[in-house]
Structures are given as structure tokens and as C-alpha cells.
């Protein structure tokens, strides 16, 4: 009798443990660190532009038009600059699966060479904000404190205080910055992709952009108190986990305290 009971008790704890492991595994899959796309801009050759033109006509022109002049479903790309194109193709947002207000980050469909070729081609159509060089996005010597202040003032409302992203209107959302490379962040600030406002270089200077990038990349290395990030979205998940965890603990404890002691009971009666 007591043996089966003990086994059953052990089984219930095993179930709880398995549940925790499953949640952890699910969580790890959901928040998996994305790919990092390295960008190395160089002066484009005419061959590269020709190649980019070819790729553009194959993969982009159905929405953006053969001359990148834009159509009813997609904007003109003339004058958007290399920074905007590199951001869109290196984060995998373009080419999009279907036209819409928002595209999620996904593994890039184009190889790095192809990305650079398309970027060079669109940039060759007209000027526009240029893709930053690696030196322009280097965070060496950046003022991370000022970066945090600027991030809190103008970025945190959408991207969350820790770059975890957040909801916008009508089902849109601001993406998490956990997988963004410094180049992509710089390009996003410079060009304002999708719903994001533009922060041009005279409003937020290149040095201030590097400060912000330094803060965002710096927060990734920050330890998570207790060992769990919980999505780093603040008190809601933390409170929920604490509440559910404590509730589970108290339910288990009260089950244990009030459980009938079968062996003694049978001897008593």
C-alpha cells in the first residue's frame, strides 16, 4: 500500500518536472537566437550592379515594378538608398512572401553576394541614405549611458526597455532587437522601415546611433536575475511566473500536508 502510494507520489513530481522541462524547451525554441548577417559594403562594380538588376527583376519586380518605380501593392524604391535595401534583404523581410503592412524577420532568401548586388543596383538608381561601413557601426568607445537615455526616450516605447519588442496598433508589432546586427540597427534608425519613424543623422547623430547600438547589444550580455529571461518583457511575465509558480508550490504543499496517511490510519482502525 505505502509502496504504491510512494510510487504515485514520485510520479506526480516527475510529471511536474517534465512539465517544467517541456516549457523550458518550448521557450528556447521560441526565442532562439537568429542568424547574424554580416554586411561588408564596398564600392559596387558595374558587373555587380548588372547582377543586382537581374536578381531584382527576378525576385522583386513583381511587386516593386520592373524599374523599381513601385506599383499599387509596393512602394517605389527609387531614392530609398542602400541602407533601406540592405536592411530589408539582410533581415529576410524582403523578398516578402506576400504584400502586407508588416513582414517578420526570417532567414534571408538571398545569399550575401546577391544581397549586396541588389543593394548596389537599387542604390545606383538614385541616391538615398547609404549603408554604413563597419567602422560607422563600431561600438568601440561608445557612450552606453547616453545610449540608454536615448533608447529610453525614443525607442523603448515600441521596442521595450530591453529591446524585446512589443505590440503596435491593429496587430502590427515592433520586432525584438535580440537578433539585429549593429548594421541593421543603424540602417533601421536611418531609414525607418515599415511603421518605424525615421531618425536621420541630423536628429540622432551617427555617434548617438552607435551609443544606442552599444546599449542594445550590451543588454544582451546582461545576466538574467534568477537565470531566466522570461522574454525580458518586464513585470507581466515575471509576475505571472511568480504567481503560477508559487500557486503550484502551494497546491503541492497543501496536497502533501493534508494527504491521508494510509498506513497509520489502517492500524488505528
Amino acid at each position, binding site marked *: 500500500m505505502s509502496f504504491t502510494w510512494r510510487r504515485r507520489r514520485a510520479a506526480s513530481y516527475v510529471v511536474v518536472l517534465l512539465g517544467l522541462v517541456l516549457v523550458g524547451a518550448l521557450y528556447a525554441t521560441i526565442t532562439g537566437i537568429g542568424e547574424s548577417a554580416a554586411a561588408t559594403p564596398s564600392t559596387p562594380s558595374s558587373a555587380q550592379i548588372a547582377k543586382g538588376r537581374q536578381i531584382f527583376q527576378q525576385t522583386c519586380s513583381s511587386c516593386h515594378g520592373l524599374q523599381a518605380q513601385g506599383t499599387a501593392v509596393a512602394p517605389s524604391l527609387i531614392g530609398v538608398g542602400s541602407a533601406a535595401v540592405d536592411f530589408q534583404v539582410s533581415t529576410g523581410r524582403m523578398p516578402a512572401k506576400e504584400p502586407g503592412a508588416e513582414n517578420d524577420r526570417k532567414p534571408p532568401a538571398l545569399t550575401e553576394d546577391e544581397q549586396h548586388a541588389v543593394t548596389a543596383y537599387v542604390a545606383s538608381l538614385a541616391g538615398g541614405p547609404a549603408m554604413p561601413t563597419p567602422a560607422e557601426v563600431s561600438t568601440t568607445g561608445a557612450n552606453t549611458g547616453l545610449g540608454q*537615455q536615448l533608447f529610453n526616450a525614443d525607442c523603448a516605447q515600441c521596442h521595450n526597455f530591453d529591446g524585446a519588442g512589443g505590440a503596435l496598433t491593429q496587430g502590427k508589432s*515592433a520586432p525584438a532587437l535580440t537578433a539585429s546586427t549593429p548594421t541593421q540597427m543603424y540602417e533601421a534608425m536611418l531609414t*525607418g522601415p515599415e511603421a518605424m519613424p525615421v531618425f536621420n543623422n541630423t*536628429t*540622432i547623430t551617427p555617434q548617438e546611433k552607435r551609443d544606442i547600438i552599444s546599449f542594445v547589444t550590451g543588454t544582451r550580455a546582461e545576466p538574467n*536575475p534568477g537565470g531566466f529571461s522570461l522574454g525580458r518583457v518586464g513585470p507581466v511575465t515575471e509576475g505571472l511566473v511568480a504567481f503560477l509558480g508559487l500557486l503550484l508550490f502551494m497546491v503541492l504543499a497543501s496536497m502533501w500536508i493534508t494527504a491521508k*496517511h494510509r498506513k*497509520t490510519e489502517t492500524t488505528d482502525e
Partner: protein
Amino acid sequence: MSDPTTPAGLPEEPSDAPAGPHRVIGTPPPAQARTMLGDRPDSGDGNMPAPRELPPDPPDPRKAKNVERIVVLLFTLAFVAGVGFIAAYVGLEVHSVDAVLRSNLALGLSMSVVFLALAVGATLWVRYLMPHVELSEDRHVLRSSPEDRKAFAETFAEGAETSQFTKRPMLRRTLIAATLPLVAAPIVLLRDMGPLPGTSLRHTVWRKGTRLLTYGSNRPITPGEFSSAGGMITVVPEGYQDDQNALAAATAIIIKFQPGVLQAPTVMNWTVDGIVAYSKICTHVGCPAALYEQTTHHILCPCHQSTFDAPRGALVLFGPAPRPLPQLPITVNSQGFLVAQSDFHEPVGPSFWERG
């Protein structure tokens, strides 16, 4: 002072009451405890109730010994953790944020170990060492016996009479009057809750000619610099960039639009080259509302999803906000910097009573 002989005669009066439990106040001594609790009519004759049958020892002495060891271990652990708590409190400095984190971790951990070990030990003790028998004990009625109640009423009336409380009305009335100010005092103390806000809720620190600084970098900005359509930036009044109390009301955002996008009820005279300034303080409960979407031109407040239509005077499109974000009149000064034309023309932030 009244005559001592009169009160001296009083205590004899209640002695007329029948013998027995009389005016039992507080916990009865252990000798009487069983009659208080197990007062069954059938036990009668003042006999002690039959002794309750409790098993002397747990059925399995070896197992009991094992459990005892575990409980002793847990209680010792609780003791050690308790000492550890004191040691951590005394020993760990709290001069920096990291040190506070370490101190909190040590204090919290040791304290929870104390309580957890105590609780687990106590539960093990109850479950494995204490006998598992159910005992029922009857309570006597809570209401006092009629004799007791009568005696109390008499004593009370006598006390009131002999204290002269009923006979001397001036004494009674002045005593009551003496306590009245004490009752009123807490109400009067409410006065000290602080000065009334006056008109301060209707004004911010923006004045004619105050330059707009980009928050954080604290630079004045020109329309030429803030030239990209779809741009948005948080601005604060120059001179108050570090005054958090002032910024709690005065912080604003400026948004740059393509020509022709801005329309009524935006006040066009308060804009510069498609740049419009709105209060950043949500009119619902005062969260910073600055989730500006350059595609839809919506300003969203992250707290309760109030949505404002930026090109149309920040009219409320959705959510609990009761009124549009106030527009800050801006212009350009002689050096070309963006400056305020005046303060906001209506109160910023959440509604308040007198606002109507």
C-alpha cells in the same frame, strides 16, 4: 472622594448569587480545563471525563526514529539558515547596486530556507510522529448563565450610581465635552496634506521662445536637421532637461510629415514645415504616448492602447483617452531653431475634477 464605607458593602451583594462558576474571565486554570471543554451531561457528578485514548507511540519505532532524524536535521538547517540570515545582514555591505543584489539574494534565500525547513519539519512531525486520531471536544454555550448576566447588570448599575456619574450631570457633560476635540483633531490634521494645486495643473514650463531640445542629447534642433518625413523625436524645454518634475508635464514629441498630410483640426499656425509638436503625456492616465507609426500616422499609448491620429490634431481614434493630445505651438526663432510660441493652450495629461 466618596465615603469608603459605601463601596465596601457592595461586593457582598453578588455573593447572593448561587454557587458555581461565576464571572469566569479569561482562560480557566488547567485543573478546570476539561470541565470547560468536555462538559457532557452524561459525565455528571463533577467526575472527570473518561481519559481520551491516545496511542502512546507511533506504530513503527524504527521509522519514527528515521523521521525524527530528518526533522531534527531540518530544524537544525532552519537554525543554521537563521544564523546565516543574521550573518548576511551584518556582513554583506550594501554600498552598490551589485552589493544590494547580493545582499537581497542572501537574505531572501536564508529566510526562505528557515521558513521552508521549519514548515517541512513541522509537517513531517505531525504526519509521522503524532498520532492520527480524531478527537472531538464539546464547547459549552458562549452565553453566560442568567445569574451571571443579572449579577453583571446589577453591578454595572450600582457602579454607575455610586460613581456619581448619573447624579452629577455637569460632571458627565464636561467629561464628554473634554473628549470631543480629540475626535475632531484627526479631521483637522487633514489640512496638512499639502497646498492645493491651484492652477499648476493647467501650466507647464514651456514659454514663448523656449527652445526645443532633443531629449537625452539635449541639443536644440532646426527644421533643416529634422527634415526626414516620418521622423519623430522626444523634445524637452531648454533649461528643464534635468528637472524630472517639470518634464513629467512638459515632455513633448515632434513629428515631421510630408507636405499636405497635416490637416484640421491641427492648428497649422502652430506647425513649422510639416513639423507638429504634441504633448507626450497621454490624456488618459499620463503614460508616455510615443509609439508613432509613420505608415498609419497613429500615435499609440503603450499602457491602454489609446490611439491618436497624428495628422489630424491627435484626435482619439481608439482607446480610453478622453481627449486629443494637446498641441504645443511651435515656430522658428531668429537663429533657425525650433522654439515654443507659448505654453500648451490646454492642460496636459489626465483629466482632473475642475477641468470639466
